[in-house]
């Protein structure tokens, strides 16, 4: 990481020619001026902050006057504005994009999520700050930062470049040696509630015949499928709508010990993703589903996050530290 932004002075001493050091030191100012005046950011947005970033680039705030033109390819860019929440699934891609950028390269972490994870920092899938993934030069606070704050951050970066001083922050080194450890099944004992859902329950074996009958009555609109983790049972909730008659039908089934339910993906197209989500977050298997894979979490994830006993602050190396490591890092700050 360190030699990416190697200064010209180093090259001067490396050349070992009489006067080379002096000559190159004075050209360095020229090069720094050129670097700061044509920062080409990677057009790359993650979440809410990206919308404000777009607003900063467009009509009223017009970043073109600072010499900034967005590039879609990391090969042509030298500034990465990380605008939004960084998740463990995205962290790897951000690292790849950063590595693909040609040096000298700079990173701005925009928004509280990219700085520290904000209110999502103790969530299993969120990286608490992008500086656990790549080195960061400038932090722009805000949720989301206003365009004025964005411009201020960019001017700040230009100042840093002009004096040739970049000392980016990077945290990941402390957990580098534990790279192969993935998230373990991280559970805690919890008192679960009894079933409180009052709407209609149908028998698990009758599901398909019930659905076919309901669909014949015109309930074509699949609103959602979801599950709830109760004391001794997972309960699946289905909600179907009938647009023409303006009606809804809501029903539940109790998922037994075997955690297996018949799939609706052959009857409703939308059930495909909905069931994958329930499988991913609750671990309920759907018989007859063609493509039952994780949808939200990475493929190698262990455990099902929305189960009640699953700890919210599960770690995921190398990008997501444990709660203990995070607190330690915070006190060292």
């Amino acid at each position, binding site marked *: 990481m360190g030699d990416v932004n190697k200064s010209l002075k180093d090259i001067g001493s490396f050349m070992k020619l009489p006067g080379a050091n002096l000559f190159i030191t004075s050209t360095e100012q020229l090069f720094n001026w050129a670097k700061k005046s044509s920062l080409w950011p990677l057009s790359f*947005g993650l979440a809410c902050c990206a919308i404000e970033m777009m607003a900063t680039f467009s*009509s009223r705030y017009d970043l073109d006057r600072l010499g900034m033109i967005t590039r879609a390819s990391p090969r042509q860019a030298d500034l990465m504005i990380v605008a939004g929440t960084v998740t463990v699934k995205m962290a790897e891609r951000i690292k790849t994009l950063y590595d693909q950028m040609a040096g000298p390269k700079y990173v701005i972490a925009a928004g509280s999520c990219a700085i520290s994870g904000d209110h999502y920092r103790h969530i299993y899938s969120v990286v608490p700050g992008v500086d656990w993934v790549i080195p960061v030069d400038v932090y722009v606070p805000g949720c989301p930062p206003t365009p004025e704050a964005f411009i201020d951050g960019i001017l700040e970066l230009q100042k840093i470049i002009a004096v040739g001083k970049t000392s980016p922050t990077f945290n990941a080194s402390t957990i580098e040696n534990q790279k192969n450890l993935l998230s373990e099944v991280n559970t805690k004992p919890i008192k679960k509630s009894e079933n*409180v*859902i009052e709407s209609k329950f149908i028998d698990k074996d009758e599901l398909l015949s019930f659905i076919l009958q309901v669909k014949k009555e015109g309930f074509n*609109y699949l609103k*959602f499928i979801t599950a709830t983790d109760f004391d001794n049972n997972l309960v699946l909730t289905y909600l179907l709508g009938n647009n023409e008659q*303006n009606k809804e039908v809501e029903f539940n089934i109790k998922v037994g010990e075997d955690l297996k339910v018949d799939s609706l993906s052959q009857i409703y197209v*939308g059930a495909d993703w909905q069931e994958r989500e329930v499988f991913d977050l609750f671990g309920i298997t759907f018989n007859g589903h063609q493509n039952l894979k994780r949808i939200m979490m990475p493929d190698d994830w262990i455990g099902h996050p929305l189960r009640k006993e699953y700890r919210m602050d599960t770690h995921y190396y190398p990008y997501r530290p444990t709660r203990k490591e995070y607190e330690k890092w915070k006190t060292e700050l």
Partner: protein
Amino acid sequence: MENRVIERDFGDLAVNMGPQHPSTHGVFRLKLYLQGERINKVESFLGYLHRGVEKLSEKLDYDQLPPVLERDDYLSPTSNSLGFCNAVEKICDIKVSRKASYIRVLVAELQRISSHLVALGTYGLDLGGALGGGASLFLYCFREREKILDIMEDLTGTRFHTNMNQIGGVRYDVTTESINKIKKLSKDLRPVLQDFANMVSKDEIFMKRTKDIGIISKALAEESGGSGPIARGSGINFDVRKNKPYECYSEFNFDIPLGVKGDAYDRTIVRMEENIQSLNIVDQITDGIPPGDLNSRKPLKSSKLTKPPKGSSYFSIESPRGELGFFIVSDGTSIPYRMKIRAPSFSNLSIVDKLLPGTFIADSVVILGSLDPVFGDVDR
């Protein structure tokens, strides 16, 4: 000399699109299997912005949740908190004063316009060459959007995560000064929005790029759970504001624009006409906000005091992207036992798997843009 061409079938060429791709409108990855320029098969990968909001909501009190949920669908933040507040009010049986209801609708409708403007602007970028360089439509739309954000800043102090709604009412009052500003905005915006609608609907290049592209049949839209402009573009007359009126929508006069064919063009036109209808609602609100309390509850000493009775309830509203619903299971404590967000973008986007095979690779961008997904909403 004999000219020989040897043709060999190498099978499909797999091309990755995203997660860093300007026209996926966020972090979404498509794996396209190509035969020449045609797409044979599609695999979609999401979850790059999965922030575990549903898990987080099992830790926070009901009163702490609206600002967190506003980060979900970040193009129309108020509709998230509006849906959530309504869902909680339904369980707790809290009545909202008419004034608060009017203010909620005012902010929601203004944000619907700003959201559709972002959708149109980025769509212009997706289409590239259309409309004189593509970027000009983007710049026009963001210029107008800034005016709406100014109003938001005037009303609430923030540009788009307004934090306006709270359980039982709204946080901030609307002054007569702001009303005058909104009236002026509406007057300015109407001809501009009409201009945009004309610019889109009559532009030769735009029509060539979007007409007959990505046709969603009525059955496909319904079965995949599509709602909002996606369903209405296909001619399904479904709008939660009309079908199950919430807040004070039943008091206002507005139409539901419908498409005929269900192609990318129809969906864009529906969005453009919805803008005009939203302006109509805004005008009706600014004509007279009824007097009343901002919040029907007394100020609480602690957020732990909101305790809905045991049970479950589902409440949905019409966000710019479609039916946004909140399914809340309450066990009688101040924290939701389980909260499921019925995200419109998630269902709308699931059509992609069925829609893309058989189309050209250049059209995949057009189709994806016309679905207008927001990934905070898809992945939650």
